[in-house]
Every structure is written in C-alpha cells, then in structure tokens.
C-alpha cells in the first residue's frame, strides 16, 4: 500500500493506493531432474565461462544497430524521477477518450485521513459526468501515468502504457476486399444477435489453472491421473452456407447446446 495526494486546482485529496490485481497463477520451480531439488541460477561471462557475482554485474543499453552502451550506477540514478507523494491530475477527458490498448494495471484508491467526503465527492462527480482523469505520479522511484476512474462508487487508478509502447488502433488501416454481401451481413447480424447475452465475469473460471492444480494435488498423493481427449473441429464450407447452418442451429437451440459443451 502506498500513500499519496491527488491534486488538481484547489483540491487536495489524501489517498491510499492498493494493488487491485492478485496473482493467482501457478508458479513452478525449476528442479534438477536427478533429485528434484531446486536449481540455482547464475550469470556467467560466456567468454571466460566464469560466474559473475551480482555486485559485479553492469548495465548496458543495446541499440538497434547492434551496439552496447555501458551505463554506470550513478548515471542510471540520475535518470530516476524525484520521489513525491503528489498524484497530479493533468486533465479530465470523457471516459471513452482513453482507448483500452493503453490500459495496464488497475489499483484501488481509498480515502486517507480524517474524512472521506472529498473522496466520495470525486467518485460521484466522475461517475455522473462520465469522465476520467489523467494522473501522473512517482511511486517507488518509478514514474506512472494512469486513468483516474469511478468504479462502483469508489475511485480506481489504472496505469497506462507509455508513448512508444503502444500501437494505437487509430494508426492502422483495416484489411480491404470486395464489398461485403448485404445478405451475408444480415445473416451474420442475426447469428450474432442470437448469441447475445449479458457479461458475467463470475461465470468464467481459469479451468486450465484448476486442472493443473488438481493434477499437482493428485500426483502429490501418488494417484494415477487420466487425461480426457478433446474433439477436433470440422472443415469450413462456403461462408453463406455456414452462416445458414449456424442460424438454423441457433434457431433450434442446438447452437446453445454446442456452445455450452
């Protein structure tokens, strides 16, 4: 948890910042196959084959032209941002102004200090006006830019990727081809409509993660594990006939059966 202050205009709002993401992935250790003991890793100098202890490791930047530029510790320190508690709001925009390709990692914000009045006022105002703030702050010697949003009555901050890291969708041109057949568009529309539903994130589970966990648990107990086989899909015929078939299946509710298979 990190503490900071959201500032814009005359507003100064002390907040606590909490990671919203919880790491649920299954972590493996690399083991020596002979005795199942964890391995250790070292960096070696390929020229001499010698292990280089971590205090002797230097940093270098590799250029596209195939050059290495050595950088000293104090040179790197000088590029680090100055520590601060300020979460500066640079601007507010409509909430569709920040395209999703920029989003990186979400954090929750909580009120810090005596009163939560301003905190909830800001959450409420952003929700009512459908706006987001663009925030910039330095946390643990790293500079961040994030989208300040209202989320179900609370405030959240989603860090944004930086210029030079993202290919914006607006910079690309779509694939071309002969004009789409209107009948096919209509059929595809119908098909998609027949499969329309509401989004319930809770209904999805990382079943693969669960199975890996089960496998690990079963093996730990010395059980024999059986693996199911999975079916293959059939080959594709003409687009119109496939759309026709899909629609027919959807109407008879067969599509639903297949979908939940």
């Amino acid at each position, binding site marked *: 948890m990190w503490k900071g202050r959201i500032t814009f205009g005359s507003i100064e709002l002390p907040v606590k910042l909490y990671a919203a993401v919880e790491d649920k992935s299954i972590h493996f250790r690399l083991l020596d196959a002979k005795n199942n003991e964890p391995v250790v*890793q070292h*960096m070696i100098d390929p020229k001499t084959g010698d292990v280089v202890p971590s205090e002797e490791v230097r940093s*270098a930047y590799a250029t596209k032209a195939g050059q290495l530029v050595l950088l000293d510790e104090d040179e790197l320190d000088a590029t680090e941002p100055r520590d601060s508690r300020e979460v500066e709001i640079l601007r507010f*925009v409509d909430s569709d102004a920040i395209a999703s390709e920029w989003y990186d990692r979400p954090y929750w914000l909580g009120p810090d200090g005596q009163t939560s009045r301003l905190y909830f006022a800001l959450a409420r105002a952003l929700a009512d006006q459908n706006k987001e703030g663009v925030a910039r702050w330095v946390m643990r010697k790293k500079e961040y830019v994030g989208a300040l949003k209202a*989320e179900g*009555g609370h405030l959240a901050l989603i860090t944004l990727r930086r210029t030079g890291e993202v290919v914006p969708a607006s910079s690309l041109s779509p694939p071309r081809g002969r004009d789409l057949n209107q009948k096919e568009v209509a059929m595809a529309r119908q098909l998609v409509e027949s499969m329309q539903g509401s989004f319930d994130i809770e209904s999805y589970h990382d079943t*693969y993660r669960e199975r890996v966990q089960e496998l690990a648990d079963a093996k730990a107990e010395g059980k024999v594990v059986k693996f199911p086989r999975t079916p293959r899909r059939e080959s594709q015929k003409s687009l119109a006939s496939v759309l026709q078939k899909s629609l027919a299946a959807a109407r008879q509710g067969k599509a639903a059966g297949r979908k939940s298979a």
Partner: protein
Amino acid sequence: MPEHIGRTASDLPDGGDEGESYGRPFWTGTVSFGLVNVPVGLFPASRSNPTALRMVSQGGTPLHRRFYTARDDRELSRDDIVRGYEVEKDRFVVLDDDELERLAPEKTGDVDLRVFVKRSEIDPMYFERGYYLVPVGANTKAYRLLARVMEDMELAGIATFVMRGKEYLVAIMAENGILRAETLRFADELRTPERIGLPKPARVPDADLKRVEREIARLTESELDENELVDHPAVKLLDLVEKKLKKDKDVLELPEEQEEEEATGADVIDLRKALERSLRKGAAAKRSTRRKRSTAKRG
C-alpha cells in the same frame, strides 16, 4: 526462484516480450462464431519497457544465464531440468510438458466466441493485455464480416482459449474495421473494494460535489494528449545513451552470437509496420519455429 517457464526450450515465456519479434504473428488460429471460422494471426498491441537494459560483465560482455545444482554447483543443461510444483515446503511434484499439454481444455488454435455482450458491460479493470488480430490467407471476407457486425452493434465476443500453456479469457471487439482482442483477468484475480476494506460509499454533501465538479470542468479537455504519456525517465535514459554514442564513450559492439540468443531491437515501429503489412496482405499461415533476428529487423 519461482519461475513460470514456457512449454519447451524453444517456447517463450507467456505474455513476456523477451525475444518477441514482430515480423510475423506470434500465434495463429481460428476465431469462430456459430459455425463460421475466421483464420487469424495475433500481434500484441503494445510492447513493454522499450528501455530494458542488458546485464554485462565489468568489461562489457553480455552475460548468459545458467542453471546449477544447489548442492555442488554443477552446471545443468536444459534437459537436466524439470518443472516442479511445491506441494509443501521443499517437497515437489514434477509436471512434465506432455502432462500439461494434455490438460489443455481444447487443443490450442481455437477461439470460439460463445456469447456476444455489449462492450460497455466489460469493466476495463479486467483488461490485461491488448492484441490485434490480422486475417490469415487471401480471403478476408469472414474477418471483415465479423468486424463489421460487432462494430455496428457495439458488441464484444467472449471466449476462452489456451495459448502457450495458459488459459485466457478474451473479449474480441472491432474498431475501425480491425479486430482486436483484450485478454481479461478472471474474477478471482481482481480484489474487490470490500476485500481491501474500503469504506462503503457515503452520501456526498452538495457543497463538496459542486466544488469538485467546478474543478473538474476547469481541467476538462476534449481528448487525450499522448505527450502526457511520454515516459520521462525513459527519455532521459535514451538521451544519455545518445550522448555517449556521440562521444563514443563506453560503446562496444554487441557480439554476434549474443544476438542469436536474445533477439532485441524490434520496437513499436517495427510492430506497427508488421501489422500494417499483415492487415493489407493477410499474415502468412504458418510461422517458422525458429525466428531469427534478420526477420525481425526486416519487419
């Protein structure tokens, strides 16, 4: 040393950018809705940390990572190493590649859109990483059809699929005639305000609301300014590199064999070019198993 490694030695750690080259899609497969198949290739919409640094020796030789036995510091080759899951302290079960492969719910290569939902229903807090889908093969009709319908109806198709040893929940949507995918976090990967212990939303006095609204209005602009997303420390670092290159201070040639081991250099411009080309011509159906730096460079 907890480690999430790829399937085989030639595979890349999932989600990472290490060694990702952008000449070709890194995954090809089929997006399907109903019985319609759309062959696609996947490109990341972003790359992380363009200023990642290399570890080198005092003399400037790029270092290699090697594995050793903990007991007697003997070097191990890839074949001497297995993947273990710690069931209790210092007790491991070994899970081999073949076993994990067979656990995959469906053979990789299929993204079956089972339900279409309003885009606005998906909370962006769930978005993990963005990808662009490019058509594979000369016929782009099914691709364009799906893109057109989803964009018109402001819908996203939802699917789960397995890629590189991990199951992903994805939302596929269309923007400007281009299909894109956002991998989504599962519900249990996101903490709720209740779990963190945030206070329940409270009534807001009118005066406070008015004051906040006034200040928001003052700072409101019509669009995002990408200049505000510039990574200042990264710019400083690149300036420093530039200066040293000019003065030819602390500059070394990168040894050839090192380039083979860890591909670098592909940046977001290479990525954009590769995407442009694939969207225009369709991506090649098969990817080569071994990607060389030369392909990345041309990309």
